């Protein structure tokens, strides 16, 4: 399998850079793409499709000009092109209503608040990646060092 991709989107470049740094430990096993807008995410996804790279995880800010993160996630889940892709909302400002919409309509898997704790973020990403690999039926062996052992164990003993 081609290297799975983690897509990060945030309209603030500095935040994006900091997020990117915190995901360094996944670098040998995944490609990490950063985007500053929802439109750019679509370009990256289209590229990934052309290159047959699976998209494992989308880490998405909510408050962005033009199109909010939740709107993007909803439109992607309606497209149905990325059924196994895990979705994480990483935001400092989402109203109660936004959050409900994100869960019910965009089917987000995790919600992490800004400012995030690097260790927690890593743990969440690890568990989502493991879930993605198990669900998409890929060979997980090469990814063992970055997988969440507990999620893996549970998935294997179902």
């Amino acid at each position, binding site marked *: 399998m081609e290297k799975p991709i983690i897509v990060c989107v945030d309209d603030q*470049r*500095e935040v*994006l*850079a*900091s997020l990117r*740094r915190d995901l360094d430990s996944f*670098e040998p096993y995944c*490609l*990490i*793409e*950063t*985007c*500053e807008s929802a439109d*750019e995410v679509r*370009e*990256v996804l289209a590229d990934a499709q052309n290159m047959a790279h699976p998209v494992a995880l989308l880490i998405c800010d*909510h*408050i962005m*000009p*033009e199109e*909010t993160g939740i709107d993007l996630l909803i439109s992607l889940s309606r497209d149905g092109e990325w059924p196994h892709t895990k979705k994480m909302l990483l935001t400092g*400002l*989402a*109203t109660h*209503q*936004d959050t409900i919409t994100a869960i019910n309509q965009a089917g987000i898997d995790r919600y992490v608040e800004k400012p995030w704790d690097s260790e927690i973020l890593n743990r969440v990403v690890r568990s989502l990646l493991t879930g993605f690999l198990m669900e998409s039926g890929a060979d997980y062996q090469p990814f063992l060092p970055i997988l969440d052992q507990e999620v893996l164990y549970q998935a294997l003993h179902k």
Partner: protein
Amino acid sequence: MPDFYRNLNLTILVSAYFSDPRQRLNLPRGEVLIREGERNERLYLLIRGKLGASSLSGDGEQTALVHFDPGMFLGVFSFFSKTFRSSMTITAEEDCELAFMEKDQPVITNEAGETLAEQFMPVIMADLSHRHTRMVEVARDKERAYKELIQSQKLSALGQLAAGIAHELNNALSVLGGGAVWLGEVIPERLGEIAPEILEPLETGLTQGRALSSREARQRRKAIEAKFSLPRPLLEQLAGSGLDPAHLPKDPEEIRRVMAFWEIGATLFGMSVAARQAAHVVKSVKGLGAPHAADRVSLDLNGTVQDAMILLKSLLRQVNVESDLGDLPHIPGNRGELIQVWVNLIKNAGDSLLHDRTPDPQIRISSTLEGEWAVVRIRDNGPGIPAGIQGEIFQPNITTKVSGLSFGLGLGLPIVQRLVDGYGGKINFVSRPGETVFTVSLPVNGIPAGEKTA
């Protein structure tokens, strides 16, 4: 003659009961006619002057109730209810002349054979109606005062809270921002001595930050990946840095080492930018607290408009902003307050354009001198303010920002209004789909006398 006696024909009553020169009295200004709770067996008619009635309230304060003008009767209630006790204290507010009748004065029979109460019925009704009207007025005044009080308490509580948080945050931000700036100076100094080859990437990071967008970086990476066989993350970093690969070492390990210093520089740059932005947010939130306490100096109004545009630079990246600032004399003002006015108005325009996804979004900002007024206009081609809330936009808690974009506290325009009022200025707007113009006029000679608000 007061309004509520308008329809009454009092001539007959007055000549029948209030024409005896022995039943007249003069009351100098300040004297008390009747005291609350004391016996009063007279019905008075005020001929000349002015009287005020007050009552002792529960907490021992005298509360003013009504005023009496010439032609009005006093003591109607106690006289006709036969309690003969006054429920109010009545004091002369001017020198007064009054006529009166006694309770056992003989009734003068009229053609209809009416009793005294029947003859005075119109007066009694008018008195009741007067009391009723007054009660309603008092209740309305209280209601209004209460609402204003609640509103000002809300704002002042928010202001105090904001000022407290602002203080704490500013301390933290000085440490972070100051620290980033210091590191940006000391690191190149120290490291440059021992490893001069890292200076260029480090300085590039420190001075330019992350100048390329993620899209530009991706395109650049695709362009250079054929020429340089480097690991993908390193390629990405190199592409994003904007550094010329020709200036870098050839060995991938060396490139990695050098790029790390670019990353350090760009991160320090980002940290000091972020600290400055956060300090600005804190400053504008702090303005909620005590906007009038600050000193006013003679300042360049156009400069405050330009400052506001700088502060909003990142928001306005996607908007075409044009400014046409005319010659203005300096006006007395507080820099922070005025910047806050423009920031709020420009930000509102920008938010509505972006939220509406207006094609070709534009904001035009102009300033002109019009007579004694410096006039700033902020015009956008956005969707306009919904007609239904146009009358309320200066009220707190009115916001169109429902989606969680921006702060949407519904506090921006009330604050703007309060600040502009504080300058004796005027703010108004015209809004329809496709064009909204906010006009702020400030007096160039400072606050006109008598218009200063608290």
